[in-house]
């Protein structure tokens, strides 16, 4: 069997593809890679369809041994990558022979690196996706040392692009948003969201939890309870403490606190790379 044997996982390593959208009405989160462009690029580099499953590695430390020859690539923020003891770099296709080990270092910026392998990770799919959803526990188990990641059948030729320039994740981020659906529930919401917020360590694939000057409910809605309503990836929800939660791919499908604004889709990938301590503010223009 073509496979990658997991030797080390770092803080967290999960199988992710493009997720399982379309099941929100059954209470199932969309899930999927948080930095979608990085996963797509890694797949292209090894000759896969962009939708193949790879490994999403939080803060590196991932090490895998090939049981058969394969092509792999690591993307996301710039990071050191070693083939056995040799530095081979990220954002490039790397050929592994059986028995060789690939190790991902710790990125100095950003949070999530993506490992793609030729043929894709062929873990058992659930509802059309191999993504691990940390909220619901759907999808393949988190990687653990000793686990075998089976690889699918190769279909393409590695792209072998040699001009992919990785971009470090910024320490400060301005995030464009669309106000609503319930911006009227909060006091002076555009100004409140435009102040600098700090990403806290309570953040995960469900959402980014922010710290800063709390937003207050508008007078008219001060005591109103919001009946549960549908949530989207990128929704900025304001719980009673007034500190925003920005929902990411593993978000609950409904929630009972007002959503003041929604992140524009073009900026969602960047949110998958923000570390605790990162400053961000929202631009509602």
């Amino acid at each position, binding site marked *: 069997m073509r496979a990658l044997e997991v030797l080390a996982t770092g803080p967290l390593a999960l199988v992710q593809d493009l997720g399982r959208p379309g099941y929100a009405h059954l209470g199932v989160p969309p899930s999927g890679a948080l930095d979608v462009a990085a996963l797509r690029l890694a797949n292209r580099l090894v000759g896969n369809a962009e939708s193949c499953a790879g490994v999403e590695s939080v803060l590196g430390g991932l090490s895998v041994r090939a049981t058969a020859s394969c092509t792999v690539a690591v993307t996301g923020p710039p990071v050191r990558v070693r083939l056995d003891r040799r530095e081979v770099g990220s954002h490039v296709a790397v050929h592994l022979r059986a028995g060789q080990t690939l190790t991902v270092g710790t990125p100095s910026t950003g949070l999530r690196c993506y490992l793609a392998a030729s043929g894709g990770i062929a873990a058992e799919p659930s509802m059309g996706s191999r993504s691990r959803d940390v909220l619901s*526990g759907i999808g393949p188990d988190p990687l653990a040392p000793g686990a075998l990641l089976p690889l699918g059948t190769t279909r393409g030729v590695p792209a072998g692009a040699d001009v992919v320039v990785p971009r470090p994740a910024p320490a400060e981020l301005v995030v464009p948003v669309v106000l609503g659906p319930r911006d009227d529930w909060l006091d002076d919401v555009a100004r409140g969201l435009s102040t600098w917020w700090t990403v806290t360590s309570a953040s995960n694939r469900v959402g980014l939890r922010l710290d800063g000057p709390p937003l207050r409910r508008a007078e008219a809605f001060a005591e109103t309870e919001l009946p549960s309503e549908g949530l989207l990836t990128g929704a900025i929800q304001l719980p009673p403490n007034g500190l925003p939660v920005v929902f990411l791919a593993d978000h609950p499908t409904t929630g009972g606190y007002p959503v003041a604004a929604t992140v524009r889709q073009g900026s969602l990938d960047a949110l998958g790379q923000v570390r605790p301590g990162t400053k961000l503010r929202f631009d509602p223009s």
Partner: protein
Amino acid sequence: MRWRRYGEHAALLDCDSLTQMSAAHATIVAARPDGVAELVPGARSLLVVAHPGSSALDDVRALIGKADLTRPPSGTPREITIEVHYDGEDLALVAETAGLSEREVVDLHSGASYTVAFTGFAPGFGYLTGLPEPLRQPRLASPRTRVPAGSVAIAGEFTSVYPSSTPGGWRLLGHTRTTLFDQHAEPPALLAPGDRVRFRSG
């Protein structure tokens, strides 16, 4: 009823009542407009997510604009019967709150016909309406840290079955051995919005 913008590719229909939301949901499901990526009912709202580049939001808006929501398409809802052992930890509390015997609580709960209004909280967790008035009771003052999978429970205007073991604050009437959610089954969830449900004491 009003539409609220929700990001670049979605809109939220803010409804006056759960009945109106269910009527709007049935109207859209019956018409099956192209380009709808997700249709997510809430307790008083309906989220419509469009595939980028489609005209689904305009189409749905037009559809709802000319629909008579007091007479929604009835369709042929799926009918599901769930066998329940009424041995829940809160059965006595529910009976006392309602001023009824435990037997009467069981008869009321298993005698009514329910509709799945919306889902959430966990995959396969449906919020079912149609709960008889005496059983509309508040959540527990302090939620349990673990409610076993299959627990049949009530809270407010809803009844539900916990598909998996989770923390929860609903009052427990009993349990079922029926599987509510299986990620490898097709469809994965037993209950979907619009389904009719009955509970049978067994």
